[in-house]
C-alpha cells in the first residue's frame, strides 16, 4: 500500500461509513481526518526523500490509463488540505456548536467526500479524471453550503451548484475538444494543445470552466452568497480549500505550458487585478462580518490569480512559488477567519460589524485569532502572507513589471483597510467594556481558529519547507 492510494481511498471509505450511520459519524470522521493528516505528512516525507513519483493506476500506462503524479506541488496542496481539515474537524466535533437544521450528522460524509475528491484531484494527471473529481467536489461543497438548511443557504447552494455545473460542463467541453484535437486527455498532452488553434480553444474553455469554479472575477457572482450563508465550518472549507482546487488545476496546466499561452495569462492577471479591486470595495461596504470575509476571498483569489498570470511557467519558478505560498497562507488564514467569525457570531448572536463589541462581552480568543489571521492576510511580517508577497514583488521588480507591483501594493492597502474595520472593533476593550463583562468561554472552535491563525504565522517562519517541496517536480 502506498500513501497515495491510501490517501484517496481512506476518506471515501470513511465518507461511506459516516453516511451510513450518523451515530458513528463523529468519531469515524475525526479519526479519518487525523489519519489523512498523518498520511499527508508521510507522503510529503516520501516526496522529500525519494523525489516525485508517478503511479500508473492498475498498471496501465498514461495515455490509456490514469496516472497519479506525486510531486512537490501535489504534496504541498495535500498537506494544506489536511491541516485545514484537522482544524475544521475539531470545530465540527464540538457538541455545543449549533448544528444544521436538516441533518445532524450530514457534515461528516460531505466533508470526507470533499477531502477524498481533493486528494484525488491534487494527484491526478488526467484531464477527464480532473473533471470527475470536480464533480464530486462540487456536489459535496454544495451540500456543505446547504448544511444549515436555511432558505438563504439553500438558495445560495442552488446558485452555486448550477454555476458550478455550468463551469464543469465548460471544462468537459474543453476536455472533449482536447480529445478531438490531440486524441488523448492525459496532462502530458497540454504542450501539444498550445500548438493548434483547436487545442488553444480547448484550453480557453477549460480555463473558463476553472474560472467559474475558482470564483475568479468576473465569474465570482455565486460565491459571496454561498460563502456567507453557509455554516462556519462549511464556509471555512469552501473558502480555504474548494476554491483552491480550481486554482491548483490552473497552475498545473500553466506549468505544463498550457495557460502559458499569452492571452490566458493576461486574462488571469487582469481578472486578478479586477478581483482585488472589486472584492476589496465590496468588503469595505459589507455590513455583515461573513460577507466581508467572503468578499475578501474574492480579492485574495484575485491576488493569487494575478501572481499566476504574471508567472511565465515552470522555467522561472519564483513567481509561481510565490503564488503557491499565497495560496497556503490564504487557506490557513481564511479558514481561521471563518471559524473565528463563526465563534464571534455565536457569542454575539449576530454578525453585524457595527455591533461587534458589546459592553457585556469582552473580546475573546476568536477575536484574537481573527486579528492574527488578518495580519497574515494583509501580509505583515513574519507571516506566510508576507513571505509570499515579498517573493512576488521581488520577482515582479526583477521583470520591471511596475504596474503589477503597484496593483499588489494597492490590494495590500485595501485589505488592510477593510480588515481593520473589524480588527479595530475586535480589539476594543477598556472602558467600553463594563467592569463585570464576561469573557466568552473557550470552545473547540477557538482552539481550531487560533491554531490555524498561528499556523499561518509559523508558516512564514518555516516557509523554506514548502519552497523545498515545490522544487521537486516530475522530471
Amino acid at each position, binding site marked *: 500500500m502506498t500513501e*497515495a*492510494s491510501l490517501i484517496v*481511498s481512506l476518506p471515501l471509505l470513511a465518507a*461511506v461509513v459516516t453516511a451510513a450511520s450518523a451515530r458513528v459519524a463523529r468519531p469515524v470522521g475525526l479519526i479519518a481526518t487525523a489519519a489523512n493528516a498523518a498520511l499527508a505528512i508521510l507522503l510529503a516525507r516520501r516526496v522529500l526523500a525519494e523525489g516525485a513519483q508517478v503511479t500508473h493506476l*492498475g498498471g496501465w500506462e498514461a*495515455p490509456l490509463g490514469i496516472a497519479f503524479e506525486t510531486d512537490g506541488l501535489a504534496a504541498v496542496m495535500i498537506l494544506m488540505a489536511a491541516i485545514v481539515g484537522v482544524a475544521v474537524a475539531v470545530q465540527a466535533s464540538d457538541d455545543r456548536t449549533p448544528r444544521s437544521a436538516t441533518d445532524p450528522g450530514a457534515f461528516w460524509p*460531505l466533508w470526507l467526500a470533499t477531502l477524498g475528491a481533493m486528494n484525488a484531484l491534487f494527484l491526478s494527471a488526467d484531464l*477527464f*479524471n480532473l473533471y470527475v473529481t470536480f464533480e464530486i467536489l462540487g456536489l459535496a461543497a454544495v451540500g456543505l453550503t446547504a448544511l444549515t438548511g436555511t432558505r438563504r443557504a439553500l438558495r445560495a447552494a442552488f446558485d452555486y451548484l448550477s454555476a458550478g455545473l455550468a463551469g464543469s460542463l465548460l471544462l468537459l467541453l474543453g476536455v472533449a475538444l482536447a480529445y478531438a484535437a490531440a*486524441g488523448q486527455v492525459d496532462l502530458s498532452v497540454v504542450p501539444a494543445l498550445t500548438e493548434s488553434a483547436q487545442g488553444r480553444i480547448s484550453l480557453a474553455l477549460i480555463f473558463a470552466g476553472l474560472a467559474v469554479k475558482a470564483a475568479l472575477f468576473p465569474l465570482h457572482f455565486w460565491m459571496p452568497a454561498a460563502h456567507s450563508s453557509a455554516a462556519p465550518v462549511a464556509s471555512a472549507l469552501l473558502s480555504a480549500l474548494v476554491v483552491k482546487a480550481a486554482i491548483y488545476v490552473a497552475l498545473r496546466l500553466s506549468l505544463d505550458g498550457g495557460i502559458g499561452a499569452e492571452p490566458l495569462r493576461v486574462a488571469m492577471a487582469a481578472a486578478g487585478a479586477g478581483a482585488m479591486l472589486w472584492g476589496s470595495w465590496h468588503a469595505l461596504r459589507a455590513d455583515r462580518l461573513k460577507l466581508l470575509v467572503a468578499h475578501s476571498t474574492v480579492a485574495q483569489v484575485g491576488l493569487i490569480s494575478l501572481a499566476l498570470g504574471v508567472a511565465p511557467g515552470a522555467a522561472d519558478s519564483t513567481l509561481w512559488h510565490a503564488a503557491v505560498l499565497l495560496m497556503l497562507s490564504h487557506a490557513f488564514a481564511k479558514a481561521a477567519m471563518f471559524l473565528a467569525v463563526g465563534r464571534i457570531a455565536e457569542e454575539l448572536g449576530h454578525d453585524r460589524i457595527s455591533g461587534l463589541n458589546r459592553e457585556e462581552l469582552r473580546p475573546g480568543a476568536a477575536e484574537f485569532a481573527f486579528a492574527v489571521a488578518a495580519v497574515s492576510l494583509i501580509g505583515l511580517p513574519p507571516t506566510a502572507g508576507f513571505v509570499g508577497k515579498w517573493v512576488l514583488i521581488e520577482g515582479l521588480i526583477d521583470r520591471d513589471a511596475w504596474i503589477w507591483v503597484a496593483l499588489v501594493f494597492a490590494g495590500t492597502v485595501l485589505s488592510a483597510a477593510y480588515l481593520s474595520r473589524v480588527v479595530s472593533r475586535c480589539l476594543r476593550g477598556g472602558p467600553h467594556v463594563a467592569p463585570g463583562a464576561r469573557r466568552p468561554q473557550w470552545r473547540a472552535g477557538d482552539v481550531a481558529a487560533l491554531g490555524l491563525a498561528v499556523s499561518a504565522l509559523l508558516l512564514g517562519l518555516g516557509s523554506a519547507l514548502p519552497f523545498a517541496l515545490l522544487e521537486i517536480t516530475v522530471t
Partner: protein
Amino acid sequence: MIAFDIVLTLGLLACAAMALTLRDRTASIAAFVVAGLLIALSWVRLAAPDVALAEAAIGAGVTGALFLRSARRIGPITGGPVGGMSASIAAALGAGGLSAALFWAFAGTSGPVPYPPLVAANLEASGVTNPVTAVLLNFRAWDTLLEIAVLAVALALVVMLGPAPVVPRALGELVLPFARIVVPLAILVAGHLLWQGATAPGGAFQAGAVLAGGMLALVLAGIGPAGERIVRGALLLGLAGLAVFVGAALAAEGLTGRFLGYPAGAEKAWIIAIEASLTLSIAATLCLLFTGPVRRPHQ
C-alpha cells in the same frame, strides 16, 4: 444514411428547442424525454450502443421522471422572460458565436487517434472483450470509481436535503398491472445486460438503470413496502457500491501491488463481481434519488 442522420438531428434540435422554450411544463418535459430517445438513436448511429442503452434508461427515463416529479411540486413557470431584448440578443450572439467556433474547432480536427489501437492491444489483458467495459472497469477504472463516488455524494446530499417523498397512491390502481409485468422483466433484462456487458454492449450502469426502472414501477404502484427499514436498506445498498469498489481497489493493491490492478488471469471474475455489486448499488441509488428518503418526524 446521411439523410436519416440529418432528419434525426433536425428532430433532435427541434425537440431540444421545444423543451427549452415551451411555456407548459409538462409539454416541455415531454419534449425533453423525446429528445432523450432521439439522442439514444443518435448514439446507435454513432456506433455507441453502450451509451445508447444508458441514455435511454438514465438520460431519458430517470431524468425525465425526476423532472416530472419536480414539475408537479414546483408548479408552473411564472413570470415572463427576463433581461429584456438586448440581453437576449447579446446572449444569442454570444452563444451563436461560441457554437460556430465549436463546430469549426471540432469539425476541423483530424488529430491522432492513439486510443483504439491501445485498447485493442490491451483488450486481451483486460479480461473482458467489450472494449467499453474494458475501459470503464479496467483501463480507466479510477474514473468509474470516482463516478460511483459522485452518485454516493449525490445520494448523501439528497438524503440531507430530505425532499418530500413520492406518494405512490395517486397512481396505484393504474400502474399495478403494468408493474406486475415490468418488474420481473426488468430483473431479467438487468441480469442479462450485466452478464453480457463483458462481451457485448451492456454493463453495470445500464443494468442498474433498468433495475431502477423496475423498482420505481414497483414503488409507484404502491407495492413496495416503503417503510423506513426498506429505505434504510436501500440507502446502505446504494452506499455499499462505493465501499465495495474502493475495497476491491485496495485489495487488488494488496495482491498485486498496483492500485486497481486486478490479479492476472482473474480479471474477469473481479470485474463481474464489482459490476454486480455496482448494479445493485446504482439501482438503489437511482431509486432513492427519485423517491427521496423517508420524511423525518421533525420536518
